[in-house]
């Protein structure tokens, strides 16, 4: 389809998404908006960075919380310790995402598969210990508290609705950016990395450079997620990037499914709902979350999204099956 014909469709989609976003605060209660919707949004934004790495480049990274933490910490440090104006700090923090991704990519550029997973896990856990131990900069295990979300055009982002709109717009922007990258030659190279490293190398691409740039691109979303999470929580501490969070991000992405990066938002919604409402029935929420994760891993290669898409492709099959039955019975009647 030529671009000129796709443009109106994309515009219509944007209008539709905009209308949906505008409608959400009216449809849900204030509690749900804050505890479920906004939280799923920033968790989902951070999740898209991992979903992109896994789904597009085939790189399972457990170091995305390190990027997330680097951005969040940088913003908190610049504002609270160095008195920088907030939007300058935000810009620096968002820029820190790709830079942190670049560093992680450079460290793990020669690894793949399980080895990469272990190396990035070591990086992620190392970042946590660094935040906990290196008190002069990170304030040790208390971290930074009392961070005030900024004002945007006079709207206070520490209030629900403005924060929701900003997070939603950020989510759409991040997804749009990823979709854009996927359509460039670089996006094709990332998929080459996922599908066949040897062939990619034979075609003259450097797998190291491709890996590093994939990490850098994904770092952007993790950084944005980190910034919004600090606005949301008003704080960041080593607890925000410990191994539980590392696994949580992987759970979000796995439950959602990585065939589409948007799956991260579905996963984030499911995990946030579980964390919030499972408490009413059991004290062992974590066991439930872990068990749900294990069940999804066992049942489906592509998470909930995979199951849903399967259903979608099953529906026409089922329809055809029943139609076939009817036609057979009609034939019998004719005979």
């Amino acid at each position, binding site marked *: 389809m030529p671009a000129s014909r796709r443009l109106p469709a994309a515009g219509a989609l944007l209008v539709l998404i905009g209308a949906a976003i505008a409608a959400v605060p009216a449809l849900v209660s204030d509690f749900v908006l804050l505890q479920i919707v906004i939280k799923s949004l920033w968790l989902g934004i951070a999740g898209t960075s991992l979903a992109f790495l896994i789904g597009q480049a085939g790189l399972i990274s457990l170091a995305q919380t390190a990027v997330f933490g680097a951005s969040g910490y940088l913003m908190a440090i610049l504002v609270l310790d160095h008195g920088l104006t907030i939007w300058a700090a935000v810009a620096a923090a968002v820029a820190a995402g790709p830079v942190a991704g670049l560093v992680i990519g450079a460290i793990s550029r020669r690894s793949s598969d399980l080895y990469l997973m272990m190396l990035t896990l070591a990086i992620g*856990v190392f970042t946590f210990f*660094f935040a906990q131990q290196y008190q002069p900069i990170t304030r040790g295990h208390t971290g930074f508290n009392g961070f005030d979300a900024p004002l945007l055009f006079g709207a206070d982002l520490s209030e629900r609705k403005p924060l929701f709109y900003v997070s939603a717009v950020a989510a759409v922007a991040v997804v749009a950016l990823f979709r854009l990258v996927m359509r460039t030659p670089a996006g094709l190279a990332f998929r080459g990395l996922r599908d066949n490293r040897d062939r990619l190398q034979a075609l003259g691409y450097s797998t190291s450079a491709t890996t590093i740039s994939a990490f850098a691109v994904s770092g952007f979303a993790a950084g944005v997620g980190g910034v919004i999470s600090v606005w949301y929580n008003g704080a960041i501490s080593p607890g925000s990037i410990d191994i539980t969070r590392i696994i949580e991000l992987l759970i979000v992405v796995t439950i959602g499914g990585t065939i589409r990066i948007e799956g991260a938002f579905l996963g984030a919604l499911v995990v946030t709902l579980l964390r919030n409402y499972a408490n009413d029935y059991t004290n*062992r929420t974590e066991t439930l979350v872990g068990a749900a994760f294990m069940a999804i891993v*066992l049942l489906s*290669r592509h998470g909930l999204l995979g199951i849903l898409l399967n259903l979608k492709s099953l529906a026409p099959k089922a329809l055809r099956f029943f139609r076939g039955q009817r036609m057979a019975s009609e034939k019998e009647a004719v005979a």
Partner: protein
Amino acid sequence: MHPPTGAAPPAGRRERAEAASDPLRYRLSALSQRPEARRLFGAAVALLLVYYAASKSLEIGDRSLLVLLNGLTSAGLYFLMASGFTLVFGLARVTNLAHGGIYLLGGYAALSVQRATDNWLAATALGALFAGGVSVVLYQVLRLLRGDGLRETMLTLGATIVIADQVLAKWGGIPTDLDPPSFLRGSIDLPGSALLYPKFRLAVVALALLAGLVLWVLLYRTRLGMLIRAGVDDPDMVSILGIRVPLVLGSVFVLAGALAGIAGAAGGTYLSLAQGEDNRILLASLIVVIAGGLGSLRGAGAASVIVGLVEAFAQTHHPVLSVLITFGMLIAILALRPHGLMGGADHARL
């Protein structure tokens, strides 16, 4: 185009092109491809580190001995963990990230037994048995995925969460520890210095050496060990020869779990049992296994000593930067040897 030195030419075309444009880099890459040169370099770095550690420590007297002993004690614990981890990877190609959780389970199970019987050895034995049992249950679940390595690893991550939460539910969140057995209580005088050192910590080193010896005998002097080694080399061929590979794999999982359980009991005695200990020990064994080379038992042994010593040194001299130093060492090793000290590209060497 002839390379400027007589060394083996680099493999890729890209590298060769790079080499032509940058002779120094070419020479470095040629050097890094010679095993003797690499070993020499590794030994030199190690010697330099030891020298630096010793000279730095001598200024404050007996601390160097303390650093050495603390390092060896951690090395013992890390070897108990890493040997099982690396064995499971070598044979089953499973990275069991629940290994830290199994360590904690073994330690806590031993704690319960000790509270009931007041017998450290029985507690450790039962803790190891319990950990081995959990490990083999995990293996049965992993079998459902039929060798899809990445999903298997994710499953073990899920198991980590479930185990940590169940431990919290059963034993609570307050840090606790086991009492050492009566004959290992107290400290001994270290010869040639005024220091006292806990007996139990020395026993951990002995325990690790014993475990290493038992593993060696098992791997190189028994039929099961032969099957394990053959399985690491070529699992398909072993199964074609009529060996029931799942049985061999299952026994390796039990062995690895039991070793983690013993480590949990030992670590729970001289360190503590607490929430988060599982992650700390998992990170340490990951670093050991990655630095040593995945699937290599000898690599795990060598790396556990290096990691233990570097960590003890860093904690004594630069407590704030200790994690950074340990991690810097890992990055340095990986920069020189992307597959660890004794790991091959695809082929694991036991």
